[in-house]
């Protein structure tokens, strides 16, 4: 479904990604793990077109997308929940969801999806008329994911959904990620520092270090891999 071929991404003169090769098949959950500053978020931003790669190509369903603008990439069905959630602080919860459906025209479908998400996250329904900035971290993560789902993505990019959240909330969020993957058949590309969690729900995993992919394998094999355990699982 999505393929990165030898991409190099730069911030000014500093190269953040080196020849990244990565492949995601439809319906999979793929995890990308790595330490702080390894280039995980940059990988997602390269896919979304915010920091397009300087060399290499990004193919979505076989077509190159690395020269498209971010809004065109969203149109194709690739949505991202960025690190730190990025809720629109002064828009209400309901308006934040509207923004997720910005490119959709089917009013009825939008309302149905809103109700579906309110069922999934009842707290959002309670707070629907409050400004997004007033929500707690966990609620904001739920809102950020809901906003992305409002766009009906075929591929959902999640950047550190567990960051700064209580264990109970993290568990809930990860259950929902699996549920979305199964029920809506949404392909998921999950970026996490919490490697243990990320690999447990994933089909396959990639390990990123200093802007390079150093390993990739079935997720269950990575979980028992000695090097991964030592470096990322704290075992």
């Amino acid at each position, binding site marked *: 479904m999505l393929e990165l071929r030898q991409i190099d991404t730069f911030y000014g003169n500093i190269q953040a990604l080196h020849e990244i090769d990565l492949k995601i098949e439809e319906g999979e959950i793929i995890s990308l793990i790595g330490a702080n500053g390894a280039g995980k978020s940059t990988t997602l931003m390269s896919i*979304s077109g915010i920091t397009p790669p300087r060399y290499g190509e990004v193919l979505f369903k076989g077509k190159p997308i690395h020269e498209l*603008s*971010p*809004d065109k990439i*969203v149109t194709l069905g690739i949505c991202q929940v960025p690190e730190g959630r990025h809720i*629109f602080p002064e828009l209400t919860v309901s308006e934040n969801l509207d923004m997720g459906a*910005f490119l959709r025209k089917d009013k009825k479908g939008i309302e149905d999806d809103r109700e579906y998400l309110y069922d999934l996250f009842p707290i959002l329904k309670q707070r629907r008329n409050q400004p997004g900035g007033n929500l707690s971290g966990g609620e904001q993560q739920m809102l950020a994911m809901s906003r992305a789902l409002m*766009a009906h993505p075929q591929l959902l990019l999640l950047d550190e959904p567990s960051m700064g959240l209580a264990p109970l909330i993290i568990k809930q969020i990860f259950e929902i990620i699996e549920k979305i993957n199964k029920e809506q058949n949404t392909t998921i590309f999950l970026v996490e520092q919490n490697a243990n969690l990320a690999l447990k729900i994933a089909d396959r995993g990639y390990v990123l270090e200093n802007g390079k992919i150093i390993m990739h394998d079935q997720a269950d094999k990575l979980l028992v891999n000695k090097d991964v355990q030592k470096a990322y699982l704290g075992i």
Partner: protein
Amino acid sequence: MDYFIELFFSGLTRGSIYALIALGYTMVYGIIGLINFAHGEIYMIGAFTALIVSTVLTIYGFPLLAVIVLTALAAVIWAASYGYTIERLAYRPLRSAPRLSPLISAIGMSIFLQNYVLLAQTSDFQPFPALIPEFDFMEPYAHIVGSSDLAILVVSAIVMILLTFMIKFTRTGKAMRATAQDRKMAMLVGINVDNVISITFITGSALAAIGGLLIASHIGQINFYIGFIAGIKAFTAAVLGGIGSIPGAVLGSFILGLTEAFATGYVSSDYEDVFAFSLLVLILIFKPAGLLGKATVEKV
């Protein structure tokens, strides 16, 4: 008492005009963090477009109502296309440059436009036809509120209500608010941010053109320099209210307009600027972000 009311209305009139211009400053600042110093010139160009179009139409014998409507349309469209072009030429190429670069580009644009109109129209004041007639029903109150004051108040009120509606409820308005609050995220939900920025410039310029048309018809003369003075005042009003805040710009404009009107009426017109800017300094000492502005932390 009549004198007080007269000054009050004169202040409201000034305030409305400042507000029409200040909205453009504050909207652009809210969305790209740039003080568009060429904005006053847009207002001036709107006034000149109105002068030319209304003169031509009057010569061809159009009825007054048709002249007003066509003139307003022409001024709005012409000024909006200037606003759009300025952003494309002078600001968009500098989008990722350090903050000072577009600011200098804006000042350059302002000087360029002033001199370009100066060359075309000379520095003399040009008489501007009174487009707004004396309404009969206003006659008993004419010593307090003139017909054109009333027209300015009503038109600005309508325009501001429409703008509020647009920003609050329309798809474009929501995209503008989202872009202002978090530009990167706006891109990630599929908003074409470049378009939103263009629309912001177009809207702000259209408002300034309406202001230019109204004030020119009220005062009866214009020259190439009116945009600079009005621009600085409206900018002051926007800062007073909290730059980036739309209700703030309107509030700041009315406060500034009323202060000037009362200072002129009770002290002397020589001191209107002294009072206006003293007020600005006072408010900024106690509320550095302006009356309705939010204190923001510079993010790295």
